[in-house]
C-alpha cells in the first residue's frame, strides 16, 4: 500500500480516468425520457390533475361512507369500537336502520378507501419528480 505517494497516485488516478472511454451516447435518449415521463401520451400530460381528482373523489366517497356509518343509528359505536376486537358487540348493537352486515360492509369500504387515499398521497409524494426524493429540495 505504500508504493505510491499521494501526489503520484493522484496523478495516476487523474491520468487513467481521463483515458477511460466514454460510454456511447444514446441517440433517442430525449424521446425515451419523455416517453418514460409520460409526455408522449396526451392524457398523461394532465396526470397530475387527474391524480388529484381521483384522490378528491376517493376522499369524498370516504367522507360519505364514514358519515353514513357514524351518523346512522348504532354507527358511532361501529366507528369507535375498533376493527378486530369487538366484532360481536358491534353486530349485536346495530339494531337500527342499517343491518349489521351492511355496517360491516360500510366499515370495510371505509377502510379500503382510507388505504387508497393514503397510498395515493404517498405515491404522489414519491413519484411526482420521478426520483423518489423531496420535491422541495429539488426545486432549487
Amino acid at each position, binding site marked *: *500500500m505504500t*508504493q*505510491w505517494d*499521494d501526489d503520484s*497516485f*493522484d496523478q*495516476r*488516478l*487523474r491520468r*487513467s*480516468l*481521463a*483515458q*477511460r472511454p*466514454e*460510454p*456511447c*451516447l*444514446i*441517440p433517442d*435518449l*430525449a424521446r*425515451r*425520457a*419523455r416517453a*418514460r*415521463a409520460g*409526455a408522449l401520451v396526451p392524457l398523461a400530460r394532465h396526470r397530475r390533475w387527474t391524480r388529484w381528482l381521483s384522490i378528491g373523489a376517493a376522499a369524498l366517497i370516504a367522507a360519505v361512507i364514514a358519515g353514513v356509518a357514524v351518523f346512522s343509528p348504532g354507527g358511532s359505536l361501529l366507528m369507535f369500537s375498533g376493527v378486530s376486537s369487538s366484532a360481536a358487540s358491534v353486530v349485536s348493537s346495530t339494531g337500527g336502520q342499517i343491518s349489521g352486515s351492511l355496517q360491516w360492509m360500510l366499515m370495510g369500504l371505509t377502510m379500503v378507501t382510507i388505504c387508497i387515499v393514503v397510498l395515493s398521497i404517498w405515491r404522489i409524494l414519491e413519484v*411526482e*419528480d*420521478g*426520483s*423518489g*426524493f423531496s*420535491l422541495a*429540495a*429539488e*426545486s*432549487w
Partner: protein
Amino acid sequence: MISTSLQPNAATLDLDALRRQEDGAFEQLVLAHQRLVLGLGQSLGLMDADLEDAAAETFAAVYRALPRFRGEAELGTWIYRIAWRTMLKMRRRRSKTEPLPQHLRAATHSPDAAARRRESHEALWRAVSALPARQAMAVELHYRRDWAIVRIAKVMQCPEGTVKTLLFRARRRLREKLDEQEMKP
C-alpha cells in the same frame, strides 16, 4: 454514437423553454448533459442496458422536475444531483438481485507491455466502479471531470469535508486494490 461536435453548449440552453418542457429545448439539454450522466452511471458500474435504462430514468426525472427548476443552482449541478440519486437507486436495486457483472471482476493477464498498461488502467476503472457509490461518485467528479470539491458537495448535498473524506477513503481503497493486483504474479 453521436459525434461530440453535435453537442450543444450547456450554457446556451434556454431555461424558459426548458421550464415549459419544449421538446427542442429538452433535446438540447439531453445532448449537452448525457455524456456526464452516462459517465456517472459507468463509474457506478452500470453497463449496457442498465446504463441506458438509468440514463432514461434520470432524464425522465429531469423532464418532470423542469417546471420547478428555479435556476438558483447551475443546471448541470441540478441534473447531476438527480442523476446521482436515480442511479444510486438503480445500483442498489441491481446489487440486490444480480451478482457483480463480468466487467467488474478481475481481468486475465496478457504478456506484452501495452496490454499490461491497458490492463492496469482497466483494473483501476474496475476498482473505481466497485467502490461504494458515494466514493465512486466523488472520484468520478473530482478526478475524471475535474470538478471542484465545493461543486461536488453541492451535488451530493454534504459538507466539503465529507467529500474530502470520501476522496481520501477512495484513494486508500484503490491503492490497496491496485497493490494487491500488482503483487500477483
